[in-house]
């Protein structure tokens, strides 16, 4: 009913308006005028752009429904190139292609000629783009240069992405960015705060065209692993992987980790400054002598020293925080503070380089780079290029690994459960492709949509007398017996990711507490505990474990004993000099020790600071 009424109104409005609706023309989003025939105008504009009389950076978009024409020439539009198609004919003719091959023309000249055109998101809306040249019909307006170009840089590096589910592709991209390789060739001269370098990087056996175009093969970030897909005595359950210990000993997945530390001689107001030196034992906060053992006369460590946690890299002393510390005899004693550069717990390695320079402020500065070799261990993370990640669950000696009839042992065993629900068929294909590449001695092309097909790979496998599906009979390394079912085994590119246990491992049984609350510190870097939070507390309450809650939240946290006055309820103290209890309010109040959390004592103090007097009323426990 209401709708009906609205309709009538709308009709009226149009009837009242002008006769023929004109196309509104917008330039960079601003209305600049009207035109009788928008459709003809866009066609004209586009023709001119292709002729070169309008800059190729301008895009046009005509919206038929709203009868609006948008001309965009501003910055910030992402655009990509297409081959122009006219009357069902690609403008990139064989003649042009031939010239391009001979180097007579360039990309730029193709753009100028109107053979290649950049479209932005809006203009793309009207385009009808063919994926392949053979797909072109008279309706098509553009042709994709290559189907891979619908992907970004990261995806185009992945082999066979068209066989994988999209979430896995996303994950594979995320993980490719965490892989270890050679991030920079001059890493030896750099002082990045953290850097990983893979010892023996390899280029993948199954690679893509963009991979080669990018020159990634020269800076590879991974290695070709021989992988079997089978369960392995329960050590590869739930995305864990079993790795061949001997393969690791031969250098598989080995990397160096560089960490740079720096410190400078800071200047303070009043003309004082820090000094690099071996701190004299009289310094405030002097560490044990052992910590300074590597320091030279200048207070700086020398390269190739094997350092461990708590060792001093650069000895440094600072002036006292407060001036005028006058001793009993009235002599001003300069007691310096220790402020050395110390290795934190869990760190360690060999000092790789020591650099002495000036800081921006013009003071003396030292940069110390510590290197440590990271050999794969239980808990290190690895991933293929198909979003299949896993951590090492076991390092098994080669003699216990399964082997094929030809004596080949897998470097890595992943679990078959990792495949079906994730639908990473590309992973399997790459394994097969990698295997075929090994036997044929030729790289397999895994470029999306246009790479080598499964049939071709199977043909190669057959040619070399192998099971075309890549399955082989494996023999259990422990019993020596043939495993009843055939097992899929192949070669696939695996990446070591920079999540290494040795940089993450953390435990605490006792440790530092916070100054304010007396509760344990938080975080690995502060050797902290794991928070027993509100929800965890709720669970214990729900279970009725009253004593356990008290233990977690009081005894193992910030327990203190306060002297509380039984008379007035305020907190007092024991005067050790006079050996008697003192209540701040009462003359001869009787004090009793009360166990409470330090945080509560703090709360009482805070409340008092608001001008409120909280009293504790004591009663004997029934």
């Amino acid at each position, binding site marked *: *009913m209401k709708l009906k*009424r609205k309709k009538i109104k709308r009709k009226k409005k149009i009837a009242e308006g002008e006769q023929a609706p004109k196309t509104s023309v917008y330039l960079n989003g601003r209305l600049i005028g009207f035109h009788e025939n928008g459709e003809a105008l866009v066609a004209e504009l586009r023709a001119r752009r292709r002729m070169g009389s309008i800059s190729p950076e301008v895009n046009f978009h005509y919206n038929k429904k709203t009868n609006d024409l948008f001309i965009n020439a501003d910055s910030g539009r992402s655009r990509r190139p297409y081959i122009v198609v006219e009357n069902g004919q690609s403008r990139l003719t064989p003649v042009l292609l031939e010239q391009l091959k001979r180097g007579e023309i360039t990309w730029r000249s193709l753009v100028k000629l109107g053979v290649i055109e950049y479209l932005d998101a809006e203009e793309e809306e009207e385009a009808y783009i063919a994926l392949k040249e053979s797909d072109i019909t008279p309706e098509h307006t553009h042709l994709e240069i290559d189907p891979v170009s619908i992907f970004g840089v990261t995806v185009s590096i992945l082999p066979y992405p068209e066989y994988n589910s999209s979430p896995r592709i996303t994950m594979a991209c995320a993980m490719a960015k965490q892989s270890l390789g050679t991030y920079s060739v001059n890493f030896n001269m750099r002082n990045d705060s953290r850097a990983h370098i893979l010892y023996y990087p390899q280029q993948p056996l199954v690679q893509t065209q963009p991979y080669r175009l990018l020159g990634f093969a020269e800076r590879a970030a991974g290695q070709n692993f021989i992988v079997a897909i089978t369960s392995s005595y329960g050590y590869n359950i739930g995305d864990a992987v079993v790795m061949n210990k001997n393969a690791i000993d031969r250098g598989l997945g080995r990397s160096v980790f560089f960490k740079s530390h720096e410190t400078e001689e800071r200047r303070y107001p009043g003309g004082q400054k820090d000094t690099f030196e071996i701190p004299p034992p009289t310094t405030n906060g002097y560490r044990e002598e052992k910590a300074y053992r590597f320091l030279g006369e200048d207070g700086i460590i020398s390269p190739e020293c094997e350092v461990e946690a708590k060792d001093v890299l650069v000895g440094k002393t600072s002036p006292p925080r407060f001036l005028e510390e006058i001793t009993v005899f009235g002599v001003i004693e300069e007691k310096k503070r220790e402020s050395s550069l110390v290795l934190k717990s869990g760190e360690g390695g060999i000092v790789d380089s020591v650099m002495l320079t000036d800081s921006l402020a013009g003071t003396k500065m030292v940069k110390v780079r510590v290197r440590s070799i990271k050999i794969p261990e239980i808990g290190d993370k690895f991933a293929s290029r198909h979003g299949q990640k896993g951590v090492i669950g076991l390092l098994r000696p080669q003699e216990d690994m399964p082997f094929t009839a030809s004596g080949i042992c897998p470097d890595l065993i992943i679990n078959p459960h990792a495949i079906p629900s994730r639908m990473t068929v590309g992973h399997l294909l790459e394994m097969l492709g990698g295997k075929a590449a090994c036997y044929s001695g030729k790289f397999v092309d895994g470029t999306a949509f246009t790479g080598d097909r499964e049939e071709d790979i199977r043909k190669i496998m057959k040619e070399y007398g192998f099971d075309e599906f890549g399955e082989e009979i494996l023999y259990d390394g422990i019993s020596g017996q043939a495993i009843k079912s055939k097992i899929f085994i192949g070669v696939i590119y695996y990446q070591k990711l920079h999540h290494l246990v040795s940089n993450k491992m953390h435990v605490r049984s006792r440790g530092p507490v916070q100054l304010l609350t007396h509760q344990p510190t938080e975080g690995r870097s502060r050797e902290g505990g794991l928070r027993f939070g509100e929800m965890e*507390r*709720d*669970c214990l*309450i*729900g*279970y*009725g*474990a*009253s*004593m356990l*809650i*008290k233990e977690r*939240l*009081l005894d193992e946290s910030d*327990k203190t004993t306060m002297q509380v006055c039984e008379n007035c309820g305020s907190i007092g103290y024991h005067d050790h000099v006079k050996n008697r209890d003192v209540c701040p309010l009462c003359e001869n109040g009787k004090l009793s020790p009360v*166990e*409470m*959390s330090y*945080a*509560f004592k703090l*709360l009482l103090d805070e*409340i008092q600071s*608001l001008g*409120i007097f909280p009293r504790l*009323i004591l009663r004997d*426990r*029934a």
Partner: protein
Amino acid sequence: MVSKKTQIDVGEAVGIVAAQSIGEPGTQMTMRTFHYAGVAEQVPTGLPRLIELVDARKEPKKPIMDIYLKGEAAESYEKAKEVAKAIECTTLDKVAYVEEDFDEKKILITLEKSEMDAEGVSESDIQKRIKGLSGLHVEIKEGTITAKPSSTSLRNIRRMTNKLRQLHLKGVERISRTIVVKGKDGKYFIRTSGSNLAGVLKNPHVDGSRVYTNDVQEICRVFGVEAARNALVREIKQVLDMQNLNVDIRHCMLLADSMTMDGAIKSIGRHGLSGEKAGVLARAAFEETVKHLINAAVRGEEDRLIGVTENIIVGQTVPVGTGLVKLKMKLD
């Protein structure tokens, strides 16, 4: 004896267990309700509805009634339709086109004959109703009515226009739409959009013992808290069941009980249950810490350390489970 065994033990933390039992599946509910988004004109279900119930809102977002009929009306579709027609509320907006004219400082009401016939409202009815309004000077012509508000401020004209549009002509107020539905038992009942328990109950064809509304507050007003508690349990359980979440009904009952225990429906949260806790520390620990501490100081309140939160803050064992029992020693 079996009933004894199934009884809850002394010191069992039923509240926490209930909260966790409803809360844990609730987290999954959030994720799933997002997929239902976009279905227009639907009664809120899932998490939004649960929040609505627990917050004890004045009125649900989409009040709905199921009106069961008795006698002939339950058996015949036509008869049921008639009852539905009688219940459905007709406003002026439905049968006339109300326009405001700010130039002439008047409101123009154009009656639509066909709609009036369909709704069964006569012109004289409408005229009488409009005349009955105060603050309006009314001129009546055939098919149109011109109303001049006595106060000609623009704001007042807009206000009066809206008031006229919502002018109640016929049926039960606030019930905007009715549909006759055939129930599982083969009998007809009426489902309405909008809720008015008291109004509907006046209709003699309505089975007063089975009428239902999803407006819990209204049930509380008309039938009392006990009924409201049952309605709460039913509504909460329904929301959870609809998502295939298997939550024991006793958890919902505990929730409903704690919401209705003092005679009126109060919400869970700052303005209700949690804001009325006995202990100062417990309230301060929840929300608005400073407010509670200051009020406690002004009144010289004493915290007897009865609840769980208070004891945790102070650093004592909590009075549930193993913390509930105390030992007494004979000294002789």
